[in-house]
């Protein structure tokens, strides 16, 4: 096992990517709060990651021997990407805009705290590595 690049670091890195993407998507929703016919977007990531973590070790995993093979079972870790989903089935306003500013601001706050928590975890990991490298000094 490579001690520098562990699975924990990988997961933290992906989650940070997703949180920073979600910040941009939420900022775009807030900027377009008065735009007619604008539909809000969201980022789906946590559910995919949870499905991957629940399935570890995989119960059923299709072997991919060709890049065009379709994955069987839960996606492998290197395929988990944050995905932007446009929510176009609802309408909050008369002008076809479905941005609910209260929920956007709440999600913004949640996302920021989540991002800070992830950074703290990442720093904790690095601190552990440093302790090991310095021989506990």
């Amino acid at each position, binding site marked *: 096992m490579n001690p520098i690049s562990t699975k924990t670091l990988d997961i933290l890195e992906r989650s940070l990517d997703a949180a920073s993407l979600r910040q941009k998507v939420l*900022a*775009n929703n*807030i*900027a377009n709060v008065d735009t007619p016919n604008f539909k809000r977007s969201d980022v789906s990531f946590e559910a995919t990651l949870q499905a991957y973590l629940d399935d570890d070790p995989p119960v059923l995993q299709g072997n991919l021997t060709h890049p065009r093979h379709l994955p069987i079972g839960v996606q492998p870790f290197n395929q988990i990407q944050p995905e932007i989903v446009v929510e176009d089935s609802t309408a909050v306003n008369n002008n076809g805009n479905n941005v609910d*500013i209260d929920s956007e*601001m709440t999600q913004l706050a949640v996302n920021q705290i989540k*991002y800070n928590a992830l*950074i703290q975890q990442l*720093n904790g990991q690095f601190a552990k590595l440093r302790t090991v490298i310095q021989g506990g000094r």
Partner: protein
Amino acid sequence: MGLFDGINISASGLTAQRLRMDVIANNIANAQSTRSADNPNLPYQRQRVIFAPIAAEGAFASILQGKLQAPGQGVRVAAVEKDNETPFKLVYDPSHPDAIKDPNDPNYGFVRLPNVDVTAEMVDMIDASRAYEANVTAVNAAKGMALKALEIGK
């Protein structure tokens, strides 16, 4: 996707809402103007701002952006349009210099006032100022996250 995209997106919202605020202020300031700048025979016409999301340039670029799963790039002001639909308010005041002087006109002696509804403008103004605040909060969130990212590995 850069570090400051979130701030740029919110900045486009700030610009758009500030322009909207300027247009609303102009409407309120001209609520009694019986002559417009371009036509002295007509009163001031209420203006309104039309917003549109910033789209990637060209059809190919916008499809590519959709496929690349990139977030939107904010909001822009598509147009500032005159309100030609709401009728002017009529007030009977024959001594007014801009009163309708033609005796054959059914509105003889009436003054045409702008189609600005001050109450509606005030409501719009509060809406614009709240939306501006929301964008400021989003800028601060993005700023906090960028600063926090600098602490990785400190």
